[in-house]
């Protein structure tokens, strides 16, 4: 009896999920605003700053670089582990984002209740933004997600626009997208940290010639030995013996080589379009 009840419940749950999945209601927005702050995270001035930045990058590279925030995805009927991916894909597809015949572009989704972030890519952006580019360059070390975690949304979005531009420029200059096995790092947008770092390094570097010049001032040094007074050819070696006394071997495990591949993983969204992307929790 218990078993039957359990099976029934499972089937019901499955059906519910499927039904909801099918009946998810896509968030519709007017036009194609590059910034839609549904969760109300930004002040008016912050919003206009972020928007102008997104606008800039989008126009420069001819693809849409968009941001959307919602307070909860479940409000729209998106549940489960793929909710953020599906939400972002659908938001992109059904609101007419993307430029050119491939409808190229990307959108960053922030879902506050679920604390999910997701970047969905389409068209040429799938190639430009590799899995490594999204998860590592933007996600791990892009000062984007960490800012979201700290509640600095405006800074996070602004950095997102910067990182997106850096990856776009990288592909343009190198002819191939930034990936885990790339030889070079993308050029960071102007950062005061780099200026400060260069100045400090420079000052430390400057100390080398300066202290060498300073050390030239000292010329009074005692003689270590008496080499100048050794009689020429007076050195006579009378005994020279080398005895082998022991041997030992030490071993250390080798580092295993990294075996993951690069590129962008692609899936098909509910509208039938191919998307790339990645995300996580913040």
């Amino acid at each position, binding site marked *: 009896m218990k078993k039957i009840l359990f099976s029934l419940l499972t089937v019901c749950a499955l059906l519910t999920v499927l039904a909801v999945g099918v009946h998810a209601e896509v968030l519709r927005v007017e036009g194609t605003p590059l910034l839609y702050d549904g969760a109300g995270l930004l002040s008016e001035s912050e919003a206009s700053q972020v928007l102008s930045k997104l606008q800039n990058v989008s126009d420069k590279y001819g693809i849409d670089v968009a941001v959307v925030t919602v307070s909860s995805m479940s409000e729209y009927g998106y549940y489960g582990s793929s909710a953020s991916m599906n939400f972002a894909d659908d938001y992109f597809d059904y609101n007419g984002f993307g430029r050119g015949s491939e409808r190229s572009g990307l959108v960053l989704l922030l879902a506050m209740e679920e604390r999910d972030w997701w970047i969905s890519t389409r068209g040429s952006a799938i190639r430009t933004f590799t899995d490594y580019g999204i998860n590592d360059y933007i996600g791990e070390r892009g000062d984007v997600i960490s800012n979201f975690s700290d509640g600095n949304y405006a800074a996070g979005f602004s950095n997102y626009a910067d990182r997106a531009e850096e990856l776009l420029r990288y592909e343009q200059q190198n002819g191939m997208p930034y990936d885990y096995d790339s030889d070079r790092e993308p050029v960071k947008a102007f950062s005061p940290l780099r200026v400060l770092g260069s100045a400090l390094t*420079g000052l430390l570097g400057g100390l080398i010639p*300066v202290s060498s010049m300073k050390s030239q001032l000292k010329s009074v040094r005692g003689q270590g030995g008496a080499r100048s007074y050794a009689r020429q050819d007076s050195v006579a070696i009378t005994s020279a013996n080398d005895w082998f006394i022991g041997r030992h071997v030490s071993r250390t495990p080798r580092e295993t080589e990294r075996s993951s591949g690069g590129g962008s993983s692609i899936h098909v969204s509910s509208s039938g379009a191919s998307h790339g992307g990645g995300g996580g929790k913040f």
Partner: protein
Amino acid sequence: MAELMEYKCPACGGALEFDPKLQKMKCPYCDSVFAMEELAGKDEQLNTAEGTVQTGPDGEPMNPEDAAPLPEDQLNWNTDAGSAWDSGETAGMKVYVCNSCGGEIVGDETTAATSCPFCGNPVVMMGNFTGALKPDLVIPFKLDKKAAKDALRMHAKSKKMAPKLFSDEQHLDEIKGIYVPYWLFDSSADVQLRFRATRSRAWADRNYNYVETEEFLVDRGGSMSFEAVPADGSSKMDDTLMESIEPFDVSEAVPFQTAYLAGYLADKYDVTAEQSVERANERIRKTAEMTFAEQVQGYESVRLDSSSIQLRDSRVRYALYPVWLLNTSWKGSKYTFAMNAQTGKFVGDLPVDKGAYWKYLLLYGGIFAAVVYLLITLFQMM
């Protein structure tokens, strides 16, 4: 015996001086030049015990130029010092009377050559070179006062961070040519050294990196000899400063003759050979050890385990070496420079000009910073 020795020009009676360029005695008044050998007879009295009156030995008439009248014996000791000086004040001090002008020359116990403060005539205190005090060797001055001044200018000029003032000749407080007393140690060293040495090779298989280390016991033995390792015998001279202007080339040394001192200052030793031998031995040991350590080759790491160095056939000689000393002051501190008057080696610590220091730090720092910044940017863009 004369306390003071002067070399009078047979032609005009002026005081002769040793000329480093000519390596001869020269009269600054009439430009007469005399070979050193011609004056050798003057020093005969040094070989005799103090106080005995010595007429010229047989060899003396062979120097016809030596006809210049010897100075008259004088009682130069200021024996009744108590009337003029408190006893404490005269401690370590000696007063001589100049043979030329009768002026009082005050020197300390070690002063062996100086010039009269009144008439400027060079004088040599014979008492400080008599008997056991007579040096075996002297290296005559080869470089004159002008060379020393030029060397200071070059020394200061080549150091960008030194205050400009130091390359200015007018800034010199004092410049003096001194014969510094040195003990010269000759010795042979028997060396036995034992080292622990290692050699290693590395290889790897699929899972591990391997390093194999082989250990060896290495013996090296032999001998080497040293000639004329110098040790400064004057407590007035800074030992480190004197070691800094080494080496001196003893092969250019000549048998001692007081005439070489004319026109220069000289001190007699006040640090004995026994007191100096330790430093000389230390230097000999070090070089012997290094020389034999260099014979150990083909190992990756070599560590000295034990060492035995025996010195034998040791011999000490007493010599005067020529040194130019230059004194100058800056911001209330004294700076001393020394030049080897045989080789021209010039040493002396210079102070840091703070302004120049910051100027160069900011200049180089700025250049480095710009390069670093550009490199980072370029590296990322390419």
